[in-house]
């Protein structure tokens, strides 16, 4: 029997093992923050600013205190008296917890009420009277950079304007030389609209300060509990060992649950003041208008091309809208995140990128919405640019990509902006995709349809992206390096418990981490419990976002299991009465090389670790591993979409979606495919309907699910999935990140398909979302449709 077949049986690598966590979820026995009820618990509600920019002239909370059942009313002034009105952000800026001087975006936290139940807390919030003096509102970079623009951050010293930062990367001179040699220069200008990760479950916390032990326990919706503990220790100046953060089941995260939000801080202070547990559960509007958004960036670029299709260089000029506080939740040392991962899969000699970040009167806190920070914008621009350039050259869009791909034998490859990609088979993925969609056949079908007045289109997006922050040289959060961890304890009977510093939000860690252990040790996956999210028990880790769990925590799981195996080998030698050198390993068993029939199982070794260890050996069989990845992993994907556009309405229907993903070795193929389909759906959503925009007064349009549209089962297309496997050369089991690939690479495929369908109009770009009216406008007016859709101005 081969090892691989054994391995599937015990739920090891490559097994589409059914998920352990589902046993509770399908029974409704998941335990989300809002499901937790503590004795004597109180409830907190937040009063938010209705205005986007205004000076607070007075706050009268007296009527709120009079509402029966109210226990505490918190204002910025009270927070300030405890030095908690402002908190540091993950990007070295400050953010208001409760406003003291001004409100700087609609939905900003102004006051909190803590009461016996949330209905009463809400009643009391309505009884608070706040007087505002409205100020001019800034909702985009152009306004922010205008000469007479009002200053948003007048709270900061040395902040003369609304510029957050200027940043550049790449080789300016080399790029200028490339453009001087170009036969053709293609240009493109895009807006990637503001979007929101919008997990179904909103944010929330239960802070429980116990005066008798001085211990603070916080149950909260966080993707990164250990970082939160560190942050709470720093902000609240509590001793770190007296803080316990528990992240229970999370109803999705997608990046939204990485930052520290004012609600968490306020609930903690309230619990300390009241010495009772305080629960805060955000409503959907609060989540959509005040918490970490994604994107909101203006991208302009040009590409220097040779007539034969070779790309010589790329320039990008970008402006990013960070909202009222620079609280991007991203761990890189690069100000604009990984935007410069653009064009990483193409062999381009020179590139240069500049970015200016600005403050506006919009919600703060860009998050890596199902992507490594800014990678989605990078890949969207890249793949829209590739299509535009192919058009300008009159070249087939697939062939143009193929001609510029980094070739299979050129790894590791230094990208034009300095990343080092690890591996890939780009051409093969493209071929698999083209074959699956029937590329040539579709082109013919499209031409025939055109004769009958029907508009068909095909869009391709190919991309690689850096996943698995980080390496500790370039990635940290508040100085904490981006490693991750795993602790494995094998019990006497050969069963085990594994804990990691990551935190699943639906990715299925309880299932897949056990599979890695099964692969490394031969202990059946069903014999391994996986625990995450409790900082009192799990080893310190950086959490789950940016598709980093498998590349980093997953690697730590492998490494800790190998440490266990090393000790088990010594135990096996002892039990078999041979020297360690004479022992061989096969899945789950050590045996004597010269007599393969003589062996001991890993379970027997575990028993020996507690009952029969050799003299001088420390008892027990447990260990911990901290993994600092040598590089990011670089998965590759090719997404191909076909659409039909209705010329009379601009409505477009997706005909087919083909996805070819190469994420290296797949731990659990079923779960990987689930991640890809979920990612494709968010890509479809962003391309078609999901966006947040603001009117001139800074009112958020998209503040609830009536306006912020998420697709249902009815609109969402079906998916056809294919795979190519190029193992990561530096990951212990050859795996790469995958959770976000489809969200990152998908949008361009949908948009390229629609643009292809209306190619004859000569229109170069419609900005997302491709709402039917925008497509119709492009079709009939034959001009680009740029920027966010207009909002009502006559109200």
């Amino acid at each position, binding site marked *: 029997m081969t090892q691989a077949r054994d391995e599937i049986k015990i739920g090891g690598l490559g097994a589409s093992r059914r*998920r352990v966590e589902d046993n509770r*979820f399908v029974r409704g026995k998941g335990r989300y923050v809002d*499901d937790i009820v503590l004795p004597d618990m109180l409830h907190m509600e937040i009063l938010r600013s209705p205005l986007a920019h205004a000076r607070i002239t007075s706050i009268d909370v007296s009527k709120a205190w009079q509402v029966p059942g109210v226990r505490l009313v918190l204002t910025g002034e009270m927070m300030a008296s405890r030095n908690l009105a402002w908190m540091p952000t993950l990007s070295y800026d400050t953010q208001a917890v409760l406003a003291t001087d001004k409100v700087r975006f609609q939905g900003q936290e102004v006051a909190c009420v803590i009461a016996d139940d949330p209905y009463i807390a809400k009643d009391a919030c309505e009884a608070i009277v706040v007087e505002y003096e409205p100020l001019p509102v800034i909702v985009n970079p152009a306004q922010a950079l205008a000469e007479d623009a009002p200053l948003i951050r007048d709270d900061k010293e040395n902040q003369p304007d609304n510029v957050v930062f200027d940043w550049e990367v790449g080789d300016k001179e080399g790029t200028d030389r490339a453009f001087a040699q170009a036969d053709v220069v293609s240009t493109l200008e895009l807006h990637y609209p503001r979007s929101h990760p*919008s*997990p179904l479950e909103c944010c929330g916390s239960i802070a429980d300060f116990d005066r008798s032990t001085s211990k603070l326990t916080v149950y909260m919706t966080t993707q990164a509990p250990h970082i939160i503990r560190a942050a709470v220790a720093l902000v609240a100046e509590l001793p770190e060992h007296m803080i316990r953060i528990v992240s229970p089941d999370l109803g999705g995260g997608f990046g939204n649950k990485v930052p520290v939000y004012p609600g968490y801080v306020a609930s903690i202070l309230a619990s300390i003041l009241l010495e009772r547990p305080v629960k805060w559960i955000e409503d959907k509007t609060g989540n959509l208008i005040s918490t970490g958004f994604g994107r909101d960036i203006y991208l302009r670029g040009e590409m220097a091309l040779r007539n034969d299709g070779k790309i010589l260089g790329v320039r990008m000029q970008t402006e990013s809208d960070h909202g009222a506080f620079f609280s991007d939740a991203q761990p890189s040392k690069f100000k604009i995140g990984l935007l410069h991962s653009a064009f990483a899969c193409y062999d381009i000699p020179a590139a240069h990128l500049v970015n200016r970040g600005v403050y506006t009167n919009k919600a703060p806190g860009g998050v890596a919405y199902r992507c490594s920070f800014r990678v989605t914008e990078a890949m969207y621009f890249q793949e829209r640019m590739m299509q535009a350039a192919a058009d300008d050259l009159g070249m087939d869009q697939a062939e143009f990509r193929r001609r510029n791909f980094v070739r299979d034998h050129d790894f590791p490859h230094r990208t034009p902006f300095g990343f080092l990609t690890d591996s890939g088979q780009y051409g093969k993925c493209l071929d698999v995709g083209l074959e699956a969609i029937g590329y040539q056949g579709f082109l013919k079908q499209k031409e025939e349809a055109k004769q009958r007045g029907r508009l068909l289109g095909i869009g391709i997006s190919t991309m690689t992206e850096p996943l698995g922050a980080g390496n500790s040289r370039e990635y940290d959060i508040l100085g904490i390096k981006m490693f991750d961890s795993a602790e494995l304890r094998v019990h006497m009977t050969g069963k085990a418990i594994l804990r990691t510093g990551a935190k699943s939000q639906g990715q299925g860690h309880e299932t897949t981490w056990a599979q890695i252990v099964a692969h490394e040790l031969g202990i059946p996956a069903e014999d391994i419990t996986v625990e995450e999210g409790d900082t009192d028990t799990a080893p310190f880790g950086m959490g789950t976002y940016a598709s980093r769990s498998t590349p980093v925590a997953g690697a730590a799981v492998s490494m800790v299991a190998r440490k266990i195996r090393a000790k088990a080998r010594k135990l096996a030698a002892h039990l078999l009465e041979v020297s360690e050198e004479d022992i061989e390993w096969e899945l789950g068993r050590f045996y004597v090389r010269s007599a393969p029939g003589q062996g001991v199982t890993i379970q027997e070794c575990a028993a020996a670790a507690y009952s029969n260890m050799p003299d001088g050996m420390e008892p027990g069989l447990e260990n911990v591993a901290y993994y600092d990845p040598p590089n990011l992993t670089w998965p590759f994907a090719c997404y191909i979409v076909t659409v039909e556009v209705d010329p009379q309405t601009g409505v477009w229907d997706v005909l087919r979606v083909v996805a070819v993903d190469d994420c290296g070795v797949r731990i659990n193929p079923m779960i990987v495919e*689930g991640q890809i389909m*979920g990612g494709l759906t968010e890509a479809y959503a962003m391309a078609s309907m999901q966006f947040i925009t603001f009117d001139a007064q800074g009112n958020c349009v998209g503040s609830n699910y009536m306006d912020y549209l998420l697709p249902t*089962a009815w609109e969402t297309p079906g998916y056809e999935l294919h795979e190519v496997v190029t193992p990561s050369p530096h990951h212990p089991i050859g795996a790469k990140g995958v959770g976000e690939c489809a969200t990152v690479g998908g949008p361009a495929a949908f948009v390229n398909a629609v643009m292809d369908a209306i190619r004859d109009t000569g229109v170069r770009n419609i900005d997302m979302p491709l709402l039917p009216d925008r497509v119709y406008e492009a079709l009939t007016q034959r001009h680009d449709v740029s920027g966010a859709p207009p909002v009502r101005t006559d109200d």
Partner: protein
Amino acid sequence: MTGLYEEIREQPAGDVPVRRVTITVNGAKRTADVEPRLLLAHLLRQGFKLTGTHTGCDTTNCGACTVLFDGRPIKSCTMLAVQADGHEVTTVEGLAGTSELHPIQEGFKDEHGLQCGFCTPGMMLAAKALLDSNPDPSEDEVRWALSGNLCRCTGYQNIVKSVLWAAKKLQSQSTS
């Protein structure tokens, strides 16, 4: 009422009038005194400790709170608890017995029809209502029936497969 003793609690804040309701929840009669403004979802979750019914939005869009009300799926965040007086409610906790899974639950597990699990109870109850009235639905009929429930994780394809899996299982059970 079922314990050995019950503390006589202080009057609700502000002497608020309450109404006594009796609702058959998952087959058992449950009685509670509720403020008229209390939403059914909150009574189920906080009052009856049936936290499998989730609340995901404020605007009757997401369907995470879907329960069966006299056999029909409704959004329990959009009904007052007082309105359920005298009616039957089935929540996810009532889908199956304690040890065995309902075929719909099995289907969701087998076809990887869930990730974070937050939409799952509502999805399964919407699916149950569909299969009760249409035991052999097409893929489109499943997508249509579930279009009042949002999922952010799965992209729906596996949810559809899960329901079709359950339909097949239920049919084979009824023929055998």
